[in-house]
């Protein structure tokens, strides 16, 4: 599927979501689509969505990943497109300041490409002068560090993307 088609599909999916459609089948000479949404449709669909969305994008990088899931599902039956990889995000369980290393100048807890285990410390989030070690909740390879060291993070904000094994 080319970029154009993908855009169309995205538009379609958003449109269906906005209209709270649960299932959608369409067949044409050149295209056959079947879409089924997981769970209930997004709360607060229309309304202030666009503004909200931009805020979400800015403050919580986790959001787009969430949107990506139904698109991936929809694309599957269409053709042998390259599968969209779903990575696991380790999120901050608390509000605070993110640090990649135990102390200034020290090496980071983990670097890109590292294999990590469940319970392994990935970083620190400082809250109220306390250093809280954040452990990985999945075993796998560190693919991306989403937040820069020294940056404030809110509850639920994604810190690392990990390819689970």
């Amino acid at each position: 599927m080319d970029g154009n088609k993908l855009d169309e599909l995205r538009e379609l999916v958003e449109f269906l979501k906005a209209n709270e459609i649960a299932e959608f089948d369409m067949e044409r000479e050149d295209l056959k689509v079947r879409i089924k949404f997981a769970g209930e449709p997004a709360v607060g669909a229309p309304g202030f969505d666009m503004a909200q969305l931009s805020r979400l994008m800015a403050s919580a990088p986790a959001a787009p990943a969430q949107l990506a899931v139904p698109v991936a599902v929809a694309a599957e039956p269409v053709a042998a497109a390259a599968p969209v990889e779903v990575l696991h995000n380790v999120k901050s369980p608390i509000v605070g300041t993110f640090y990649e290393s135990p102390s200034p100048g020290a090496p980071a807890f983990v670097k890109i490409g590292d294999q990590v285990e469940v319970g392994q410390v990935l970083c620190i989030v400082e809250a109220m002068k306390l250093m809280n070690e954040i452990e990985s909740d999945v075993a796998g390879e560190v693919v991306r560090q989403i937040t820069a060291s020294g940056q404030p993070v809110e509850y639920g904000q994604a810190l690392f993307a990990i390819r689970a094994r």
Partner: protein
Amino acid sequence: MFRKVLIANRGEIALRVISACKEMGIRTVAVYSEADRNSLHVRFADEAICIGPPRSSDSYLNVPAVISAAEIADVDAIHPGYGLLSENANFAEVCRASNIKFIGPPPEVTRMMGEKSTARQTMKKAKVPILPGSDGVIADENEALEWAKEVGYPVILKAVAGGGGRGMRICRNAEELPALYNQASTEAANAFGNGDMYMEKFIERPRHIEFQVLADEHGNVMSLGERECSIQRRHQKLIEEAPSLMITPKLRDELGKTIKKALENIGYWNAGTIEFLMDEDGKIYFIEMNTRIQVEHCVTEMVTGIDLVKAQLRIAAGEKLSSIITKPVEIRGHAIECRINAEHPEKFTPSAGKITAFNVPGGNGVRVDTAQYAEGVVPPYYDSLIAKLICHGADREEAMNKMQRALSQFVVQGIHTTIPLHEKIFADEEFRSGAFDTKFMERFFERQKES
């Protein structure tokens, strides 16, 4: 003035504080739970930080999360709104320890006024009339009889650990007292593991009247007159108004002076409310003090023209009352507030869900404080207040007529609200007469059943 303030609350009061800050040129930081991601307080604040999952205990009541948010956003002060952390003295202490100004009274005073018997003693000392009763726990039925003689019948026996009406008895004479005392004490011991009892004078048909005060951090206290909040259902206020028909200018002035003296003595500051019961003879008795801004503060704003939330901010920034309120306080016209709750108007079951249509009334003398909107969602986790509808008229009659008009133009679809209940109350003769008391709603429901 503060550069940046965090609002540790949600819903209409969070938006109310954000609006006041904006008008004063102060940057705002909203905090929110995952359930409130699409709320207007999040949308209209300059910054917003998610502090936890939907449950209040994990987010809005989570002191470390709120303080961390304040630290990463680098704010000067926190406004706690009402409810949630607003009367939590520990929270105010953590703010102080973190070098963040808590917009409210000092924690020592909050703690003192939170203790019912301490508050009573404090007010008694300052010559504020208090509800007669036993000074603390009653040892046995004989002491109960002695107290009752002093207080005068009828009296009410209450369990120190009580709540929900259990361990509570009304006694009308000395004959029935011993038996009732023992019943109540046993009931309390069974229910709460504590049989301790105290006694208060029982008022058959009390009115609930409260005084709004402002106090600066330089020892100056000012009373802004009273509100009448007798229209309650199960101790939840439904309708509030200012002024009260029962308070003469003379009484307002006298009580204002007494309250002023009392609060100067205890070193109170910021906004607060002194709650009274009024008996059938118009005598007034202190019951408790609320050390925060209240839901119903708007009716006082409408009749005095004073912005209480802005006053709170200016007081917390160190300003003197004399620079905030430059003219003598005058009561102009009459204001009434209806609490619009997301509840079934007859069964009072909470009604969370998505709002599908939302039309807010406007026009002359109508004020709406809300954080809801068309397509907005009422989450099931928090209290059910979705809007306050406040009407201001030249007199009570005009304010009531305005309220009826405004209620008829307030459209909320998708969830149940108390709008139809308010419409019925405003058509009720007893309510309109103004001659009611806190038992009004019971009689009102009886009348509704009959008709």
